[in-house]
Each structure stands twice: as structure tokens, then as C-alpha cells.
């Protein structure tokens, strides 16, 4: 895509709503907004598979449902496997639907990674969205392998915060050579919707890594639901990019060098960090960004 095209593009978010209001999410929940956007983009011919995650609650207790689409609630580690079976069952009966597996970071990075990796290796015809709120938020803020270095959670107390970097799920999924891998955030709705619309037209496994604000777990003001992920992108903590058939394209290259401290300081989960620790995070973010720029320059990588 050329620069002029990028400037021209104004993705329109469809007006149709497929999610009912009144869902039981926390104030300023990014995960809830992410679903609302995803269904707008994918449209009514969608079936949703939800493993254990915040969305097991947000979708509403029996006999209610927050979505106008069919939902299959399943066990924690099985979103990709159930979605594969669902798609196969639809295919054999010559029925069609976009099968959307919708999991949190625990169900994707940790307990569900085996089934997800296998589904991607088989190139199952599913869209898998990981809404990443960077910890086990539904059980009360325990660290996952998606929790960033230095963050407080209830299992990484301030005296011993997370001492390993966030797992790079984008690269893990790209290594499966699936047709489409994209990062997105709830702070960039048009970008997310555009990517989902594109993914809908692709066959095979399509993976989304969506940064979803969690004011409860991040100890951040709910009104920063859109602002925080934007800051994550502007500080390059969470780059927006796509890997389409092995070609990397970075969707947003911040012109200003905003230090990561700007992103960290508004979140209680990073409050304990020393200047030295913040510098360590900055160095890591810079290195990862440089590597990403190099990958984009290399052209087709698989």
C-alpha cells in the first residue's frame, strides 16, 4: 500500500450493532469494545467460540446473551480446537459462516497455545482474536505470559514484579506461516475494523493480537480506555502491524519519540518501577522496534 493510499483511507465503522447494551463488563473495558467492533466488521454471518475468559461473563449468564450471533462457550484451552470442529461440521453440511474464536491472553498465550498452534499449523479456516488485557483478569489479575516485564499483578507483587518479558505471540503465530497475522488495539477502531474486513476475505487461519485496556487490572482510570492503547502505539510499546503472506507492514510509525514512561506512569501496575527499570523497558522497546523495522524492509519473509 502506498503512502498516498494510506492518507486517503478513512475506514468507516459499520453502524449495525450486533452486541446488546448492558453487558456486565467493568467500566472502561477494552475487551467489550473490541467485540462490538469485531462483530460490526465481520457482520451477521458469524459464529463465536468463547473459551474461559472475561467474555465468559461479559456475554451474559443463562438465559441471556449479549450477542445476536450464536455463541459456543467452551473450556479454557479449546477455542481453536472447537472452532476447527465447528468449521468442519459446517463445511460437511455445506453451511457457511465466519467462525470467530475469541479468547483472552491466558487462553491464547498460555493454556490454549497448544490447540492454537495446531489449528494454525493445519491452517484451519478460522479467525482467532486474542483480546489481550495482559493478565488473568477474570480470575482477579494474575500474571500470564502476556504480562509485560515489570508489571504488578496479584501473583507478581510489587516486591517481585514480573521478571520476564511479554511473550511475542505475533512472531509465534507468524512462524506458523499462516496467511494473516495482525496486531490491533481498541484505541484504533478504524484500523481494527479495516483489518478484520480484510481478514474476512482471506481463507485459512487469521490471527489477531488486540491490546484491550483493562482499567481494573492495569490500575488505570476507566476514561483512558481509548487513550492508553494509543499511547502504547505512540511509545512503540505495542506496534501496530500486519504480516500478510509473510510480508510485514507497520501500520503506524510514530513521528515523535515519546518515552515509554509516559505510558507507564498513568498505570498503577507500573507505579513501583524505578527510573532504572523504566530505562530497561525503554531499551527493550527500542530494540524490538528496530528489529520490526528491519523485518519490514526485508520484504517477504516466508
Amino acid at each position, binding site marked *: 500500500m502506498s503512502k498516498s493510499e494510506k492518507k486517503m483511507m478513512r475506514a468507516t465503522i459499520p453502524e449495525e450493532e450486533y452486541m446488546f447494551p448492558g453487558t456486565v463488563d467493568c467500566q472502561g473495558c477494552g475487551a467489550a469494545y473490541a467485540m462490538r467492533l469485531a462483530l460490526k466488521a465481520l457482520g*451477521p*454471518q458469524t*459464529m463465536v*467460540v468463547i473459551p474461559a475468559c472475561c467474555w*465468559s*461473563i461479559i*456475554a*451474559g*449468564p*443463562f*438465559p*441471556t*446473551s449479549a*450477542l*445476536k*450471533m*450464536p*455463541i*459456543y*462457550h*467452551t*473450556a479454557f*484451552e*479449546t477455542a*481453536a*480446537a*472447537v*472452532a*476447527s*470442529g*465447528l*468449521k*468442519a*461440521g*459446517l*463445511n*460437511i*453440511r455445506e*453451511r457457511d*459462516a465466519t467462525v470467530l474464536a475469541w479468547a483472552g491472553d491466558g487462553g491464547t498465550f498460555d493454556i490454549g497455545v*497448544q*490447540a492454537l*498452534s*495446531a489449528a494454525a*499449523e*493445519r491452517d484451519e479456516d478460522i479467525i482467532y482474536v486474542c483480546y489481550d488485557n495482559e493478565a488473568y483478569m477474570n480470575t482477579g489479575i494474575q500474571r500470564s505470559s502476556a504480562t509485560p516485564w515489570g508489571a504488578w499483578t496479584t501473583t507478581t507483587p510489587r516486591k517481585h514484579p514480573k521478571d520476564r518479558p511479554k511473550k511475542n505471540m505475533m512472531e509465534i503465530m507468524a512462524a506458523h506461516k499462516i496467511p494473516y497475522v495482525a496486531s490491533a488495539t481498541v484505541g484504533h477502531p478504524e484500523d481494527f475494523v479495516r483489518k478484520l474486513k480484510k481478514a474476512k476475505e482471506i481463507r485459512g487461519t487469521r490471527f489477531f493480537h488486540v491490546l484491550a485496556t483493562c482499567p481494573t487490572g492495569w490500575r488505570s482510570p476507566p476514561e483512558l480506555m481509548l487513550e492508553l492503547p494509543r499511547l502504547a502505539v505512540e511509545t512503540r510499546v505495542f506496534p501496530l502491524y500486519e504480516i500478510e503472506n509473510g510480508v510485514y507492514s507497520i501500520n503506524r510509525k510514530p513521528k515523535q519519540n515519546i518515552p515509554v514512561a509516559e505510558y507507564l506512569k498513568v498505570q498503577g501496575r507500573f507505579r513501583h518501577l524505578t527510573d532504572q527499570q523504566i530505562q530497561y523497558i525503554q531499551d527493550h522497546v527500542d530494540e524490538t522496534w528496530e528489529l520490526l523495522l528491519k523485518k519490514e524492509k526485508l520484504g517477504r519473509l516466508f
Partner: protein
Amino acid sequence: MSTVKVITGNHAASFGARDSRAEVIAAYPITPQTQIVELLSEFCADGTLKAKFIKVESEHSAMAACIGASAAGARAYTATSAHGLALMHEMLHWAANGRHPVVMANVNRAMGPPWSIWTDQNDSLAQRDTGWLQFYCESNQEVYDTTMIAFKVCEQVLLPGMLVLDAFILSHTYEPVEMPDQELIDEFLPPFDPPYKMDLKDPHAFGALTTPEWYMELRYLIQEAHEKALVKVREVEKEFGETFGRHYGPLELYRCDDAEEVILIAGSTASTTKDAVDIMRKEGRKIGLARIKLFRPFPNKEIRDIASRVNKMIVIDRNISFGNQGIFFNEIKASLYQTKHTPPVYGFVAGLGGRDMKIDDITGIVKQAETCNIEEILWWGVKL
């Protein structure tokens, strides 16, 4: 025209799934089951069977994928054994509680450690409370037949079903298996059409969080479905017998008409026991065999009927519930509690981890039951 093939128990399971027209198969290899899904993958590849075969990375995902397929309204099938079945455990609950009539063959294999690939019943019996129907087969023919019987019963009551065959004794042993005309099978087992499925035109949320206000009612309905399943098994087996000439029943009685003693056992050891019964009969002993084919739902009525007609029951378990006794032994005793006629019931634990069960073992057990203390666990053939 029906055809007869000389095949292993494993391939009898594969042909059973093929002729039942399974639509989605998701499976993972494990000894001694692997041949079941190998042959099915060939059927899918050469178009003999119009089905999607999902080559998953674990048994847990195999069951998850079968559940997804069943949620789409398709007929789903898998096969496993021992550790594979144990890994599936969570999803066995999910399949039953989600009311998905998935059918699975489980090759009875002992659990490790130590590693063992030989037969015993602890793998399947450990799944007793998951809500699955369980059918224990005696022959390769029965494995083939029970696949379609299981699908028919399960789809009527919306519960999953497991047919069980012994490792190697059935799984890898060749026997002639008669396969009826596909047209007749199709008549017996019409296409699956569940009342609820993932449907864009009729959207539902399946398995959503349910508060104490309704959870118990959903469990009540599963128990009710099991009770219905017991009736259905009898009906469907009768229909199967009328159509194809073979009848098994939840509790198969062998030479029980005038029996004073009865041996109760499940699986292929029943064949050996039939020979042992014949020998003991020749010696003048009025003994019979009641083969437990159906374990869940448990055929209480049939068990009580036979108990009311004999003076002694001898249960042989190729399994043990540690800290208590043989599992069939316990189930049978529970079934007889507070019934009018309860003969003494002797429980033997034998043949674990594939230890051979020969005619002499059966006659030896019957002999030991004459003198042993009914209060103890009766271990047969332990070298300690």
C-alpha cells in the same frame, strides 16, 4: 448383500464409523487404538467416507473438535485409549453436559506408570461419572455393530457414548465381521439432526454461565436422559437384532436359565468365561455367565433379575477402585441393596495390565469363591 471381512477389532471400529457415516473425525494416535483412525483417514482420503478428518495435536483437542462439529449439527467420531482418554477427561464432561452425541471407541488399556499398553478397564471406568454411555464389547462383530447402535441411541437422547474394546485381545486380533448393506444401515441410522445447533437463523448461546437457580435442573435432565437411554438401548438393540440378526442386550445371559451361580464380567474375557462355563457345566455345576455390556446407564433391572434367580454371584473386575474394591463389584452390590433377593456377591480383581485370563483362571476363581472370605478383596493371581 452383506459382506464378511476378516479384520481386527480396531478395523471393525473404523468400518463401524464408516458405515455409520461419521461426518467429522478428529483424532490423535495412541497405542493400541491408532489403527482405527489410520484406516478412517484412508477412507476420508479416498472418498469412501464423506467426512472431514481433523488431525489434531492431542486427545483433548480431538474431543474439543468433535464437540465443535457436533455443535454444528454434524455426526462426530473419535477413538482413543488409556492416557488419551484421561487427557480428554475435561472435555468428556463438556460433551455430556453440552448434550453432544459424539461417539468414541476406547481401547481398554492399563494406565501408567509403569508404562503398559495391555488391557484393563481402569481407563474407561475412571470416566464413569462424566455422563457418557459406556458399552463393553466382547467381539469384533460387536464392536462394529455397537458403533451404529451407540450413534442411534446417543442421538436420540443427546448424550455421548463410548464403546470399549480390549487392547490386543480384540484390537489386534482378526475375526470375521459381517457388514450389512449400507442401505439397511442408513434405514437403521438416519442422518443426525439435532434440535439445537449453532445456527445463524436461530442464534443461541451454548454453555453460558448458569447460576445455582438453573444448574441443577440441567443436571436433572441429563439423569433423565440416561434413564431414557436405558430404555432406548433395549429398544434399539431389539430393532438391530430384528434387522441384522444379532442381539446383545445391556446384560447378556449365557446358560443362566437354571443357573445357581453366575459369573459377571465385561469385555472379551466373557468369551473365555463362556468356555469355562461350558466345562464346569459338563462337570455338573449349574453355572452361567451374565456379561455386562452396558455400564452407563447401569442395567439395574437386569442385574436384579439375575440376582433373584441365583444363589451366588461372582464378579470379575479387570480394574480396581483403589481404597475400595473392583468397580463392577461395587456397582453390582449397590444395585442389589434393599432388593428382596440378594445372594452373596464375591468380587475378584484379576487380569490387570493385560495379565492373561485363561479358562483355568476362571474355573480357579469359581473354585476359590467356595471357600474364601467374602469380606476381603479377592486378588486373583498376585505373586506377592
